[in-house]
């Protein structure tokens, strides 16, 4: 066994394999079948047959249609005899694209299977040559609950991810390169059109481009405010509660954490209704004689932007509190005592000791909450709905890239532009994550702080 630990390559299997192993190149499973692994060989061979049947049946026609995405429109033919129009079935580009992608995944799977069986059949061939024990089918099955338990456990979850996460993502990414949109009536029949949509979105002078750069700018401003305000204010709150002299620490913490326990969408919708022009807050203020007309919480761009950031503080600070209370207590006490000896006040101590220490320890948390805020659909969609929206725009003044993506696809049916926005969001997130992560102290030098 020891000498076969080295990875077998397919090339090696083809070059050094015996007749049966070589035959497996065409008749998959032949090598396994002749090398005492009959059941496995038959299984692999059946899979190959299934693949051929699938390809001959629908696969090839789907693949052939993929480059053109279907040509024939739904036709109308005048039927003289009946005196009516008869409709012919046209192509649906959406299904063609979907099945085309599925077919490509099936082909990828069969190639993978081919590689695996080549390697395996060479491996058992060598085992036989060196007179070693070849695992029987029964032993293989048994290993599925022992040494190979991960295969048993992970197959279903992986299949789920592949079918309902990766395939849809690839599908969406493909849409970005097509004309699939309500614009120009391309909802049933559309075509590949390369990078046209990317050009439109990135071009600052066009309507789409102007909106994109504005939304991107606001998304980043929002993410910075939402992340750092929550972080710093949450930390100050935690420090105040943690003070030696503060009474009833548990009670205060409970008050703040209680708001996490209410489902977010419920509390956000309550806030939204309370801040409407005819909502509780405005009426209270008007009755008290403090204002004469309702405050434009959701109708003025600046008001709306500030409001969502402030409400996000209400939502987010308890999470920060929950997260960092424990870490705060880990700050070595000597640091504080030394600072006090040197006559540092609470503000100096916060900026010179607490904040640097916390930043050092919690950078990964900050990055993940920054990413979470860029993708923060709930807060924006449920509060302002992205509004207020200028006439003629699809993106409102408080729309983030994600909420705009939602509007473009679900409401407007500009699927291709939506997909482009999705891809660009991914690009922005990747850049942010990589750059910040590589520049953090905790990545460069893990033990540096002390």
């Amino acid at each position, binding site marked *: 066994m020891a000498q076969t630990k080295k990875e077998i390559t397919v090339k090696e299997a083809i070059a050094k394999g015996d007749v049966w192993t070589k035959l497996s190149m065409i008749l998959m499973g032949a090598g396994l079948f002749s090398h005492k692994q009959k059941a496995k060989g038959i299984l692999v061979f059946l899979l190959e047959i299934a693949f051929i049947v699938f390809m001959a049946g629908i696969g090839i026609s789907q693949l052939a249609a993929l480059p053109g995405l279907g040509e024939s429109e739904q036709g109308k033919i005048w039927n003289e005899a009946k005196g009516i129009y008869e409709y012919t079935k046209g192509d649906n580009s959406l299904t063609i694209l979907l099945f085309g992608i599925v077919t490509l995944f099936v082909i990828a799977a069969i190639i993978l299977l081919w590689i695996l069986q080549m390697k395996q059949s060479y491996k058992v061939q060598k085992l036989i040559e060196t007179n070693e024990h070849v695992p029987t089918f029964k032993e293989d099955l048994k290993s599925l609950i022992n040494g190979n*338990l991960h295969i048993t456990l992970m197959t279903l979850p992986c299949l*789920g991810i592949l079918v309902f996460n990766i*395939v849809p993502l690839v599908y969406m990414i493909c849409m970005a390169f097509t004309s699939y949109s309500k614009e120009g009536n391309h909802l049933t029949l559309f075509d590949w059109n390369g990078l046209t949509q990317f050009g439109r979105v990135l071009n600052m002078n066009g309507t789409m481009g102007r909106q994109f750069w504005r939304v991107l700018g606001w998304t980043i401003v929002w993410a910075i405010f939402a992340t750092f305000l929550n972080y710093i204010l949450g930390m100050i709150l935690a420090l105040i509660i943690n003070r030696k002299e503060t009474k009833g620490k548990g009670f205060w913490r409970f008050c703040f954490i*209680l708001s996490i326990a*209410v489902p977010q969408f419920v509390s956000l919708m*309550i806030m*939204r209704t*309370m801040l409407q022009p005819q909502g509780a807050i405005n009426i209270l203020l008007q009755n008290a004689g403090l204002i004469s007309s309702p405050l434009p919480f959701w109708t003025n761009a600046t008001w709306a932007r500030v409001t969502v950031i402030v409400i996000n503080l209400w939502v987010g600070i308890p999470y920060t509190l929950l997260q960092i209370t424990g870490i705060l207590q880990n700050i070595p006490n000597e640091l504080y005592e030394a600072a006090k000896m040197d006559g540092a006040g609470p503000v100096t101590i916060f900026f010179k000791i607490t904040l640097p220490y916390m930043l050092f320890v919690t950078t990964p*948390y900050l990055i993940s909450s920054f990413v979470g805020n860029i993708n923060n659909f709930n807060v924006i969609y449920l509060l302002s709905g992205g509004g207020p929206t200028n006439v003629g725009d699809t993106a409102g003044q408080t729309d983030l890239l994600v909420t705009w993506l939602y509007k473009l696809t679900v409401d407007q049916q500009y699927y291709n532009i939506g997909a482009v926005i999705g891809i660009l969001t991914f690009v922005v997130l990747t850049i942010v994550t990589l750059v910040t992560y590589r520049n953090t102290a905790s990545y460069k030098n893990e033990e540096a702080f002390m």
Partner: protein
Amino acid sequence: MTTLKVEGKKNRRSPRKVAVNVLVHVFLAVLAAIWVLPIFWIILTSFREEPGSYVSTFFPKGYTLNNYVKLFTDRNILNFPKMFTNTLIIAIFTCIISTFFVMSVGYSLSRMRFKFRKPYMNLAMVLGLFPGFMAMIAQYYLLKAMGLTEGGLIRLALIIAYTASTGLGFQIVKGYFDTIPHSIDEAAIIDGASQWQVFTKITLPLAKPILIYTLLTSFMAPWVDFIFAKVICRATASQYTVAIGLWNMLQKEYITQWYTCFAAGAVVVSIPISILFLFTQKYYVDGMSGAVKG
């Protein structure tokens, strides 16, 4: 140490310290009020006699249980009982399947070593960077192509949508499994146990807290998600879940009649979540820091 104590006592007695202390407590009380009042207010509203989204007094003029009664008996306009059963069915299946998925993936990544392990964890990270429902909209088309977006099958579609990618959320569970000493499994394996037996008979019982946490959080997911449900249900009102129902109660055409019922519904959904949250807080914190460590 003793000198410090004496110093501390002296400080506490000084008038400036007392003033600061009082200020801090007042400040905390004001903040706590800001955080607690909306919750308190919604509870009051759920028992309010007058309908409508706004009344001029903070405390209702009359109290009633009718909002709860109406919520669970009125089947004509917004069929809340039906939504409740829909969500319950979906939640039960989601809970079982996704707990199984998360536990399996967490155990494999924590205890087994295989070639696909690192790539899988990296893949999970990359997939996490895509906007969540970018896949969601395409998922809808996939489910539609499978014929699952009509009538009663929508429930199945929602179960699939809620569970299919849960294998990506393994971080908390893996972090927990990592803290269970390997020596326990090794001892069991020497005694002739298979990996499967180690997983089911040793690791899972030892990980009971995180198992309960996963069961409860995945049970709760369908109750609080409303975006996915909205994208998949579209106009099929008979298959709506509780979250869409509550969302609808706040739309223009219903809000005056249904606002107090919305409050009642919000309380009904929040109570189990609050209880669950207060009991699993510790694991939640551990989980968040575990997820950060990666």
